[in-house]
């Protein structure tokens, strides 16, 4: 009977740690609530399957059932997420009822970032020009910098952008156009 075979398998004596022969399920993480233990495995921003590299077990998403703010508590480093190598910023879009969060360090430049934003919120960004900002669309990607000013995404060199960007907002309509005329 199939039940007894499964039963025997589950209870067979072994020297290894139990639970290994079940596939360890790792979600391809778009989930921004990244437990800080990721920094131990040395790869931040990399999503997808971890190989079950011995000797440490693969981490299973959702196990053990400890909330993120408890897990994060024991990092000796400062709580801010930049300590684990990523630059996380919140992204909002006018009219969308939810915020997303992205890691700016993952992207190599503006084209990649804009593509991701387009996919994330299902809209198109217009053509960028230094003089006129984004043309051809109702939406403009903007960001708040360290000084609290709202700037147009793309106006400053990429490296400067990722270190000064605090959060992103995809503005809609006339408010957006107002920014593009301001210049840097």
């Amino acid at each position, binding site marked *: 009977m199939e039940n007894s075979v499964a039963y025997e398998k589950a209870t067979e004596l072994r020297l290894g740690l139990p639970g290994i022969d079940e596939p360890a399920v790792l979600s391809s993480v778009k989930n921004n609530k990244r437990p800080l233990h990721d920094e131990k495995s040395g790869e931040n921003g990399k999503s997808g399957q971890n190989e079950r590299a011995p000797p440490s077990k693969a981490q*299973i998403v*959702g*196990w053990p059932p*400890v*909330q993120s703010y408890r897990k994060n*508590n024991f990092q000796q480093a400062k709580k801010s997420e930049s300590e684990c190598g990523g630059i996380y910023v919140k992204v909002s879009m006018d009219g969308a009822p939810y915020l997303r969060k992205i890691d700016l360090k993952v992207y190599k430049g503006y084209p990649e970032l804009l593509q991701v934003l387009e996919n994330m919120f299902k809209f198109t960004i217009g053509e960028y020009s230094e003089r006129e900002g984004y043309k051809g669309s109702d939406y403009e990607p903007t960001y708040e910098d360290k000084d609290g000013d709202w700037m147009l995404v793309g106006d400053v060199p990429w490296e400067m952008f990722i270190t000064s960007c605090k959060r992103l907002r995809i503005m809609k309509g006339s408010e957006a156009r107002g920014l593009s005329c301001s210049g840097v």
Partner: protein
Amino acid sequence: MQKKTAYSFPDEILEHVFSFIQSGKDRNAASVVCKSWYEIERWCRRKIFVGNCYAVSPTMVIRRFPDIRSIELKGKPHFADFNLVPDGWGGYVLPWISEMAGAYPWLEEIRLKRMVVTDESLELVAKSFTNLQVLVLFSCEGFSTDGLAAIAASCKNLTELDLRDSEVDDLSGHWLNHFPDTYTSLVSLNISCLGSDDVSFSALERLVGRCPNLRRLLLNREVPLDKIANLLSRAPQLIEFGTGTYAAELRSDVYSNLAEAFCNCKDLKCLSGFWDAVPAYLPVIYSVCSRLTSLNLSYAPIQNPDLTKLVSQCPSLQRMWVLDYIEDSGLEVLASSCKDLQELRVFPSDPFGEEPNVSLTEKGLVAVSSGCPKLHSVLYFCRQMSNEALVTIAQNCPNFTRFRLCLLDPKIADYRTLQPLDVGFGAIVEHCKDLRRLSLSGLLTDRVFEYIGMHAKKLEMLSVAFAGESDLALHHVLSGCESLRKLEIMNCPFGDKALLANAAKLETMRSLWMSSCSVSLGACKMLGQKMPRLNIEVMDEKGPPDSRAESDPVDKLYIYRSVAGPRFDMPPFVWTMDEDFASELS
């Protein structure tokens, strides 16, 4: 309106009688007695609890209950706490706030759990509900301190603001300044989740100083220890206090100020916070310890002997939350000192470590179960367990209402006999007849589910991971647990047969979550066709379900009853298996 006879009560009398019925369940029961009771009851219901915000629409609630003053809403499934629910899943409160803004201008209390709350929602709350007294955002996210500023500025009657465990975008500590100088009604403030380096401390001090009714104050980690004394001296009437970071260089002036401040808080009964705690400053709270009924040290890295010494000074404890640094020895002391203990939670200090870093085993829990006759609620993380220990615990504590055991290594067997832990958990459900909530872990076969189905008749919530071998397991639970409301399952090898055989049961429950199990797409579609009053939501971030075979298991499944039909705010990775979906693809 019913024709009045000499033998029926006037409506006003019935309404007066109903005003004594506070519980939602009782009110629901009264409302189905007859049509006139339904009518009278719905006009005078003031408080409503919606356990799943998608089970009903705001329009329907407003239509039935025209004059609500207090609402509680819950959004995401519980496993969202452990990162199993991706961002963007749902649980938005804005549609509710928008509709209630017009319908319930006198709303006084809003309590939300696991919902997405935007600044826009908070601004709308601030604008629409001038009488708001209570705002509780429990494990919510999506808002920033800008939204809080709007609340502070407008809600003149606010008594309680509780942001417990929420994820808040800290843009500026200055939101506290938005409480006007004339505002003095604060009774309860919980900002422990805020992370900003810039909580405006002076604004906080002034706020605390001018609110004489403040009884509960939970600070965030960033408030330094040397500021606490000053704060406490402005609020000696506090009953519950949560410190900020509890570490600082040892200085005698800071020390004595703190000790004096705590000593002057004669009503203080609950303490929490203690982030980064160092032993040097622990004795300042000794004067309070004998009165403490609740102590939360679950963020404190203090170890034995300091930790045990502290605990031994608190004989009145009813609730204790602590890290596993307490160890078996500390729990034995707890068991002998704290005879009023009702709730114990022991959290892991190193959840991902492979080797135990502390000496905390099943022995600690056995000791507490033996020494504390009032113990009824347990959450315990440890690395080893035996059936014998569980049986002892069950016999010691037949009054358990909540028993959650988490063995850090999934599928670990009884360490003494190498048997599954079926018998041990079986004893728990057999002896604890009032058990309402149970979380299983360790090596478990179908047998434990047979015991649960047989005995756990009052069980309302069951959490299962890495357990069972066949659909029989799920069938036992669905067919046996009469009171079951919430079932959440991860990484178990069963699904289809049990679900389809017990489809009707699912309509009697609030929700079912199954992730990384063996539920096929085909079964989901069948359920969707058969059960129109259930929302069958399949979640898969890798791609649409129709790109796979019918027999392929779905990644995540969330089933809940609803009178509102399928929802329309689903993200791209969630599909509803309703009748349309099923027929479209076949």
